């Protein structure tokens, strides 16, 4: 397997975590989070700031997890009595505010120049074994996150989330504490996203505010809508499908001799067009949600 394929697989794995996290919030909990990238940013900046202070990788991971849990909790708390579309815009705005802070408080975050040279995973290994080890680490994290999500959403907790998504009033009358459910869901989603950010920071060795644009959130949304809302395997499939498609668009350009602008436009059309097509013709996504049965109850 060439280095290129290993790399694309690693990136797809990192995005799979983000997709699993967003799918937990949107697909199961019905929480229209448009600020997903902020949770990822907690992970990247946690890793980067810990690296700058020489605090070790695990401390960085810890920072990221705590920050993402706090941000998730705050997002959920603000959404207490907001309608879904209002809340979506609020999360979008808050994520943008966090990005602005990262850009402008350059004494802490390195500003627009970001923080570079972050220590890679397994620095002692040769290039090829190192790549393979990182691949194993990332895929391992995806596997754990997937099992966790399956476990959570297949059991009582998942049922609670689904009832909240479909019939909030009914779920409240059944004794579910909606706010607590939302907070748990956002915090759990935040933790998974933070792990993704942590992996990303140490893999690409650079963390900066440009990585936290709103368009990244839209990309993750496209992954879960295409893969299948409310299905964990679908989220992973969506992430892999989009990452691999993007990675191979440049080859089409080389083969056909089209200008490089074509690649940029194709990327937009693939996300946008893919979303439109799936919403119009295959709403359930590639792997539809499993309904009508619960396995771990």
């Amino acid at each position, binding site marked *: 397997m060439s280095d290129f394929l290993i790399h694309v697989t690693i990136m797809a794995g990192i995005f799979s975590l983000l997709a699993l996290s967003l799918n937990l919030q949107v697909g199961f909990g019905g929480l229209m989070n448009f600020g997903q990238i902020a949770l990822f940013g907690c992970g990247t900046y946690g890793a980067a700031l810990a690296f700058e202070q020489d605090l070790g990788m695990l401390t960085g991971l810890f920072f990221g997890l705590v920050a993402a849990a706090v941000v998730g909790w705050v997002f959920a708390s603000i959404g207490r009595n907001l309608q879904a579309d209002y809340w979506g815009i609020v999360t979008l705005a808050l994520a943008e505010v966090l990005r602005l802070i990262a850009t*402008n408080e350059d004494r802490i975050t390195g500003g*627009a120049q970001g923080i*570079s*040279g972050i220590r890679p995973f397994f620095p002692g290994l040769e290039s090829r074994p190192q790549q393979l080890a990182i691949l194993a680490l990332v895929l391992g994290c995806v596997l754990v996150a997937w099992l966790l999500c399956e476990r959570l959403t297949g059991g009582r907790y998942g049922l609670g989330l689904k009832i909240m998504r479909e019939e909030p009033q009914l779920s409240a009358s059944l004794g579910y504490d909606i706010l607590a459910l939302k907070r748990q869901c956002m915090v759990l989603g935040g933790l998974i996203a933070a792990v993704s950010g942590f992996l990303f920071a140490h893999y690409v060795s*650079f963390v*900066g505010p440009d*990585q936290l644009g709103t368009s990244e959130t839209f990309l993750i949304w496209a992954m879960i809508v295409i893969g299948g809302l409310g299905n964990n395997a679908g989220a992973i499939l969506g992430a892999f499908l989009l990452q691999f498609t993007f*990675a191979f668009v*440049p080859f*089409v350009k080389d083969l056909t001799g089209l200008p490089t602008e074509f690649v940029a436009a194709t990327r937009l059309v693939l996300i946008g067009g893919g979303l439109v097509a799936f919403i119009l013709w295959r709403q359930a996504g590639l792997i539809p949600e499993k309904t009508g049965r619960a396995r771990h109850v």
Partner: protein
Amino acid sequence: MKKLLLAGLVLAGLSVSAHAEGVVIGTILPLSGASATVGEDQRRGIELALDQINASGGVLGKPLTIVTEDSAGRTATALDAAKKLVTVDKVPVVLGEFSSGVTIPVAEYLVQQGRSHINIGSSGLKIRTIGAGQFSVLGLDDVASDFAAQDVYASGARKVAIIVPNNGYGQGMASAFEKKFTALGGTVTSALLYTEGQTSYRRELQQLEAGSPDAYIYSAYGKESATINREGFELGLNDKPWYGLYLTMCISDSEPHYVEGQIGMDLNYIGPNGKGYQDAYKKKFGTDFTSTFNGFAYDGVMLVAAAINKAQSTDPAKINAAIVELGKDYDGVTGPIVLDADGQRSAQPYLHLKVVDGKAVVAP
């Protein structure tokens, strides 16, 4: 169906690796996203260099091919592109990008893979420590800001206001300028980092005006420079001197009468090769330089081509050695290029310019 298509793509992708015979090098540019204006300008420089090289016989006697990839200004996409160029197109050299956040990870990867990287657009200081095989054809350090601060101080201004874009380039320029200018004994009333892509910079300009500075220091490219110059004119701020950091790009999109009389600094395009380059650019694209980065891109490609010819090989190690050799005294369109022990451009000659009749000309 979609999976089938994807599988086809993967196969197609892996089989395309062999380009027509001849030397192939790669570039990674921000052709879409927030820095697309700069990326497009870099592409122009590369195109001019490619025309020039292939018109005079190519490299190692065969035409040179350049594979250009879009980074979209994203670290992740740029890494995809770098890995594609290295493992599939098998290029010995990659040139790029613009923002440090993309350049540094890409350069680290290339150096780790034993390929050469030529930095044609980022001025982040951390690039210096990436390692052997990494070269910069633009001055990192604070070469440009130091020159500008001394130049402004010499012009008599003591209180100045700065406005630059809120990105790595702008933040770097502003802080270095402020440091040098204060050390010289001047004051910076305010250093403002503007958000790119706004519909108006009127409020930002009024902020600068509030400090009643002796002069305005600014740097902007593309759309922003046009807006800032027009609004500065409308607000009547041009009764004070305006100093453009890289003046040519600051005024390229603006109406001549807004920028008449502005002073500033820019690279030495008047060198033995520079003038012809400026004309060639204008002839091919019909405008003045839209940013200062096309020249670096051009020099980067020309330097690589010269190095491959000198090494008589496409082995990266030999190319590196040739670049080091050439880098002792290379004449680029952006002036003489002298690389230091870290492969970074150590000095850059600058010119003090003034806008007369809508053209930036050398002022005494």
